[in-house]
């Protein structure tokens, strides 16, 4: 599929901001499954400095600073995306074999350890482990188990926006059985890791369909998040617990990391006296 991708973030401050230092993690990945061309980052007011850098996880970051007083900041990222569907289907490796590989293969462990241990937004307890455990019987295929976990989250949880924030602990999400894509992804990752698998967090976009009979509204798409697990011999495989599906052409990948904390689309430090509000608009337009 080919898409035009538009992601606009707008901050409005009640007081003047004299100094802003920010990092944008907005440039989609180039990978065998995805190509990104004509990426443009348009920031208003015009930054005094801007520079591009590859971070620890291999994501592309843009550092920028604004030194003139402003009350509104707009960050507009646009690009052309070409996606291909994933060729991975069932892998036939069992859960036992995957765990064994991760435990004994030194090179693999070195490479994956940080995706197997707790991270800031992915902490677990017995309860979370138990939630995932029944999807992973030892001799079942790892792929099927992962699908099963996503299905379980999809059916047992309600998508409710506004109930959680990024700081809501997974314990609460599990208890209340509601949240948004980032909570479901963090929960799935916690389940994977607690059972001895390697899992990471993917941030990106998803093309959405308007309700039947209605035209799609501008800015109605959203940033999205899903998970990726490591299957020895195959590599990283994506799963979307929010929609109970295996990401294909409609999923566009921006960045990955241990959890949301590593891939936040926009981070910044402002020096101001007032408060701020912000608005995000995303369009994934098929072309």
């Amino acid at each position, binding site marked *: 599929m080919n898409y035009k991708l538009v992601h606009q*973030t707008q*901050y409005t401050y009640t007081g003047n*901001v*004299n*100094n802003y*230092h*920010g*990092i944008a993690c907005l440039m989609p990945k180039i990978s065998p499954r995805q190509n990104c061309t004509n990426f443009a980052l348009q920031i208003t007011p015009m930054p*005094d*400095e801007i*520079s591009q*850098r590859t*971070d*620890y*996880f291999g994501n592309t970051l843009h*550092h920028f*600073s604004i*030194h003139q007083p402003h009350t509104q900041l707009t960050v507009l990222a646009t690009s052309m995306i070409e996606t291909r569907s994933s060729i991975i289907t069932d892998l036939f490796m069992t859960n036992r074999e995957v765990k064994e590989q991760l435990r004994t293969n*030194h*090179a693999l*462990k*070195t490479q994956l*350890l*940080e995706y197997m*241990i707790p991270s800031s937004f992915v902490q677990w307890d017995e309860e979370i482990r138990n939630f995932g455990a029944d999807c992973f019987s030892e001799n079942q295929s790892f792929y099927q188990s992962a699908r099963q976990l996503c299905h379980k989250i999809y059916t047992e949880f309600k*998508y409710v*926006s*506004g109930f*959680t*924030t*990024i700081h809501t602990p997974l314990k609460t999400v599990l208890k209340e059985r509601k949240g*948004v*894509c*980032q909570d479901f992804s963090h929960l799935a990752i916690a389940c994977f890791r607690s059972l001895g698998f390697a899992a990471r967090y993917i*941030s990106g976009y*998803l093309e*959405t369909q308007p309700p039947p009979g209605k035209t799609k509204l501008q*800015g*109605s*798409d*959203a*940033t*999205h*998040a899903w998970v990726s697990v490591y299957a020895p011999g195959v590599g990283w495989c994506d799963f979307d617990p929010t929609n109970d599906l295996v990401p294909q052409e409609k999923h566009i990948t921006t960045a990955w990391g241990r959890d*949301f904390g*590593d891939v*936040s*689309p*926009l*981070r*910044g*430090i*402002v*020096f*101001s*006296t007032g408060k*701020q509000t912000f*608005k*995000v608009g*995303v369009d994934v337009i098929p072309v």
Partner: protein
Amino acid sequence: MVADTIHSLLDSYRTQLSSYDEILNADGSIKPHWEKLFQSLEKIGNLELKNRLQEIKNKIRENGVTYNVYEDPKGMNSPWKLDPIPFLIQKSEWESISKGLQQRAILLDLIFRDMYGERKLVKDGILPAELVFENTGFFRPCQDVKLPTEHQLVMYAADMARGPDGRMWVLDNRTQAPSGSGYALENRQIISKVMPELAERQYVSRLSPFFTHIQQAIFRVFREKTDQLNVVYLTAGPNNETYFEQAYLASYLGFTLVQGNDLTVKNGYVWVKSIEGLQRVDIIIRRVDDEWCDPLELRGGSKLGVAGLLQVIRNGNVMVINPPGSSILENTALNSFLPSVSRYFLKEELLLPSVATWWCGQTKERQYVLENLHRLIIKKANRKQVFRSVYGRQLTFDQLQELRTQILQHPSEYVAQEEISFSTTPAFVNDRIEPRYAAIRAFLTATPAGYQVMQGGLTRSSPVKDKFTFSNQYGGIAKDTWIVSDETEIIPDRIRLPRQLFQKSQTSLPSRSAENLFWAARYGERTMAATTFLIITLNSLNLQRNFGTTTKTEHIEILLKTVSRLIRIEPGFSNENAESYKHPFAIITDSIANEAKRGTIASTIDSFLKAMIVVRERWNQVTWRTIDVIENIAQKLKQIQPKQNPNDIQNTLNTLQYSLFTFYGIVSESLPRNNGFLLFETGKLIERILSKIVIMRSIFSARTERFIEHELIEATLMNHFALVNYRSAYKSNYEMEYMLDMVLLDKQVPSSLAYLLQTLEQTIAQLPHASERLNDAQKAVLRASTQIQLIDVAELSTVSGDAMPYEKLDQLLAEVYGLILSVSDFTANLYFNHTATQHSITETIMDLENEL
């Protein structure tokens, strides 16, 4: 008789030894340099040692050497503790220890670079992967934050103690922002002054070359970029445990002491926000821990760092020592892997052993620790303030069980170490010389010619007998550390640096320091004004009590009322509260002593002292001695009781006034005439003008009999220190007109408004200016000064209205008051960059409008 006592101290010390001691060789003989030291101690004698210890304590207090103990309400500015007996190591032994320390520094530097680079150590199985990825000191954004030098670990400190095999064992590493070298320097200064005869017949290596030459050699790498090197010392502020040392070192080395919000990132560089504008920074020596260095990429809420700092380092536009990320090495678990790392990188055996260490992040080791918990020492792997080492043998069964659960919850955060008995060393405690456990912190720094070791260190001994705890947080006692030899020191290969480096590098006055200097002056003068006027009031009160008639006391009431105009507390003296005049000492005492009420003398002195401490690096030692005196008076003031003999109160106020004058004297005689001085003067003059006006307006606000008015005129003249001058001109002929002429217009009187305004005008004119035109502050002073000079004294001293006898005078003073108050605001706006609050913002994925 003499022969009998010659070895009494040494003999009595020897009888106390229960384990092996620093003074003894393996065969039980006394090490020669310790013998010499004991001979010197013998000459001094036990009694005199007690006196010397007191002298050390006095010096420490006078010099303001402090250490802040966390979690203790009284812990702020706790005095540093220093033993009169130094710790000795023979030079030849120190040289071999140094080799071991240098090897450690090299290894840690290699590990540091590898962990943030190729990670060969992990790939080749030398270090467990957990030690990198589960290490709370591993900061991923730091992986490409590099210095333009070969070594990334520039400053390194190691804690050591002598183990059972007679060798020095390394206990702990400090690799982020090692503290203690400044205390070592201060220890030396105090001991060399108080115990001059101690070093007889021995040669003690000097410490200063380490600071002046060696540490700064690393700057050379950066110097090629710029003619004038601007070095700043980044502190976390006065609440940090070692703030004294940070201010001391900054001042000793001539670097600008800054806090995070004094710095800003702009156009790819780091700048100091100084009162002259932005000044570029080349090198930052940081005393802020890794994760607090940059709120943009590290800990988001940090206000101690500089937003955008990491990116500036990446671009090579600033050098931060040590580079952020080095906390990865402050992990005790590393100890157990050093021997294999040494073989791996250097093909050498480790020269200095470490204490046997097990890291719970590994399965086998964790198992061992859990099974042997009762005989191990448990620590947090990463250095943390909150976790005190736990001795397994001291725990009950339940406590051990609880500790096991704790470890199992976060295994990688814990290490266990073997409990080893280390050597003891002579310490002067409980008025005699006793053996105490001690640990030495050694300091190293990278130079283009390799790692160099300070010829000395910071030794700390345990406050409790038979216990091996020496952290200052728990009352450890410092010892000066001597590297001794029989020959004078030849500095072998002294590192020569281009002359340019020694030229005065530019120093800035950060806006925050400027603001504190300004407020130190205002609070100081506010104290002075209140004290001076209270003395005058108490004088009148005593006179009235002892010699006066009971009928004419109205002037006393007016003076008391004025006290409450100056020190605005509730309840105060007022006509509505007429009862208060009859028993004035309750309110007077409250106005002086109650530190809980804002505006009292006690609370104003506190504010004054606080502001002084924030800019402590700008004051010389003489100043600190006076500040110490003022601090003591403040303590005394807070004890004042209403029932106390009024004479006592007056005496205390007199000493306070006298000490403040001493302080002013030191400022005016010894402070360099830079912008800091000018801002101090500005603050002082503003406060003085304001307080004089408040007093004058209050005193002459009611119509009084002639006799009473005479008393008030006299009080006013005393308040302006002009009584003698007045009497020599007008004898005892108290006329309103003459008095006003003197306190308003007479420029010979340094407390006259005309003189004060003129001085303020001149002072402000010398501060940095953006343009040739007068700024708002200057305009306001000029206006005030002109107003005063244009007055007609005869007109002002004519009684007009009934309610307000000197209406014109009052109007004039009110106007000048308003103008000078605005000068204070204008000055603040001009020079003190009131930084807007820093907010950290993150776009969250959750968004109400865009439901999926």
